[in-house]
């Protein structure tokens, strides 16, 4: 349970990190792709503040925010996107394939869900009350392996929290064109109780997530949390097919930083902003100066 300043800082770190990526992408220093988390910061920060040492976190293609909120090193993430030796995975994984401590992300939608379920199951088999948190988007819900996993999680009582970040779009496809039925119902149909939250207020997210994660810890059973959220930036770095007015409306009503800002004094906000700007600048410059990987590769 963090205070308002800590949460503001955590969200701002993600926002500035992602802005820096988008801003500098054109220069070509980032080889590859990126999927920025701008607008969705409250989810990662609100959910992951409840994660403890033995817990595990699984993420998807849009993993920068999750990684930073988990406690991942900003310079190492910059370096990974630059393909440097100091990158989180030494430049092997890039933006979508990150692993550090108990944090894992993979670029194949849905594919991490059974794996996260297995890590949860292993926790129960070993004993203890570690939990697993796994993030997925609304689009990923098209993948059948997710439902195979939910069924096993419920059958075998795997302490896993399935978090759906429902930004109502998959790449360019609005949810209406991709999803029949409703999201919570898809979890409940497989024996996984689900909560639905429409908010990008980090306090609300943190409160609800805290309750559900506690529930998972205590019961040792799977739960789902569906968070209605908004993606402000393009899917990747490229063109956004959505109307500008639509984006403007989102930024006006859904910005977690704006919503949370009011809880801090102006001075406090300015200090945090300056410190975060400096931290990001510093992490970026350091990564930029980091060495390329030693060129020798062998299959695992």
């Amino acid at each position, binding site marked *: 349970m963090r205070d308002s300043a800590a949460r503001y800082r955590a969200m701002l770190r993600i926002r500035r990190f992602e802005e820096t990526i988008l801003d500098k992408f054109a220069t070509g220093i980032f080889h*590859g792709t990126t999927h920025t988390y701008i607008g969705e910061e409250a989810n990662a920060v609100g959910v992951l503040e409840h994660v403890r040492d033995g817990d595990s976190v699984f993420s998807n293609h849009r993993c920068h925010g999750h990684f930073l909120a988990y406690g991942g090193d900003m310079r190492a993430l910059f370096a990974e996107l630059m393909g440097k030796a100091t990158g989180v995975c030494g430049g*092997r994984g890039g933006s*979508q394939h990150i692993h550090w401590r108990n944090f894992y992300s993979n670029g*194949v939608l849905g594919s991490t869900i059974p794996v996260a379920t297995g890590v949860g199951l292993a926790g129960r088999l070993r004993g203890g009350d570690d939990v697993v948190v796994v993030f997925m988007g609304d689009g990923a819900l098209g993948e059948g392996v997710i439902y195979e996993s939910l069924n096993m999680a419920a059958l075998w009582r795997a302490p896993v929290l399935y978090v759906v970040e429902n930004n109502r779009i998959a790449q360019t496809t609005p949810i209406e064109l991709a999803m029949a039925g409703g999201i919570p119902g898809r979890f409940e149909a497989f024996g996984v109780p689900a909560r639905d939250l429409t908010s990008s207020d980090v306090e609300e997210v943190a409160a609800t997530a805290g309750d559900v994660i506690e529930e998972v810890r205590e019961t040792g059973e799977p739960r789902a949390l569906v968070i209605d959220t908004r993606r402000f930036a393009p899917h990747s770095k490229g063109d956004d097919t959505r109307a500008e007015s639509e984006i403007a409306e989102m930024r006006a009503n859904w910005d977690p930083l704006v919503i949370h800002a009011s809880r801090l004094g102006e001075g406090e906000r300015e200090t945090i902003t300056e410190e975060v700007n400096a931290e990001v600048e510093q992490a970026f410059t350091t990564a930029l100066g980091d060495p390329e990987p030693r060129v020798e590769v062998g299959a695992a």
Partner: protein
Amino acid sequence: MTTVLESLNAGLHAAMETDASVYVLGEDVLDPYGGAFKVTRGLSNAYPERVITTPVSEAGFVGVATGLALSGLRPVVEVMFGDFVTLITDQVVNGLSKYGWMYGGSLDIPIVIRTPMGGRRGYGPTHSQTLEKLFLGVPGLRVLAPSAFLDPGALLKAAIDDPGPVLFVENKLQYQRRLDDPMFSALAIQHDRQEGYASAATAGVAGAPRPQLTIAAYGDMAERAGEAQIKMAYELEIFSELVVLEQLDPLGPGGDLPRPLQDSLRRTGCLLTVEEGTFTHGWGAEVLARAVEASSQKLAVARVAALDSPVPASRALEALVLPDIDSVVGAAQKLIAALDG
């Protein structure tokens, strides 16, 4: 100056215009986006009712498309990244490739599955692979790859007219290549039938002496091999014949080595296979095996491919793992040296 991308896109437009039973399915294929790599651009504006954007359900929509094909329609399915063909393996291997045969041989399954393979964009291990080898040697399936040396759009249109199932393997970096690339003006290129409706191109530096070496390649690596061929001729006086194949499997009639490749090998007695996928159990192994089995003399052989490793994201590491012009040149030099020495 048509690009491979424009040619494929035109092929799709032509197919949809001439045949009302052609449907396009895939993720994010609708305009204005027109697909992650823009191959389907303009189709949904022109034929709104025949372009269907799908949920992220690769196995499911390939199965649905199989049902359309069973019903006499001609679905063209896009799998956004070639890496995700791993999700459709069952529908392809135990489904659409078998139905025609196992149900007594009476059924047509006119489905085309298009997907872009390939790296060099730093997308990392799950978005950069060249995985067609998973689907080489699947009975009942035809595997094609377009080439800038031939006619990508025409090949795609012919594949759509094919009564049987086709895996159509594209390549991310190939999309921007020009069909009439002046870079290749130095080459004399001869076109032949390969098998069925697929063609082969045999290229040599115009006016060069007798070729010492046959290079067999397809897709984007064929174009890189073409660059290597020119470089070798001018800088190293190594003269080669490049045989570009549109059909990866079956290679030729009855699966035998296609005629143009046989002919070239008769001239050179030396084979270099080139592909972007990982080395072991790649396309080159079968080509090499067929060539050796068919030849009475001892062939000099070698294969150029990616290292047996996942594709790293980092530019430096990716360049190390994936084969390129210099890998072709290097392998050719070693082969020739071994012959001379």
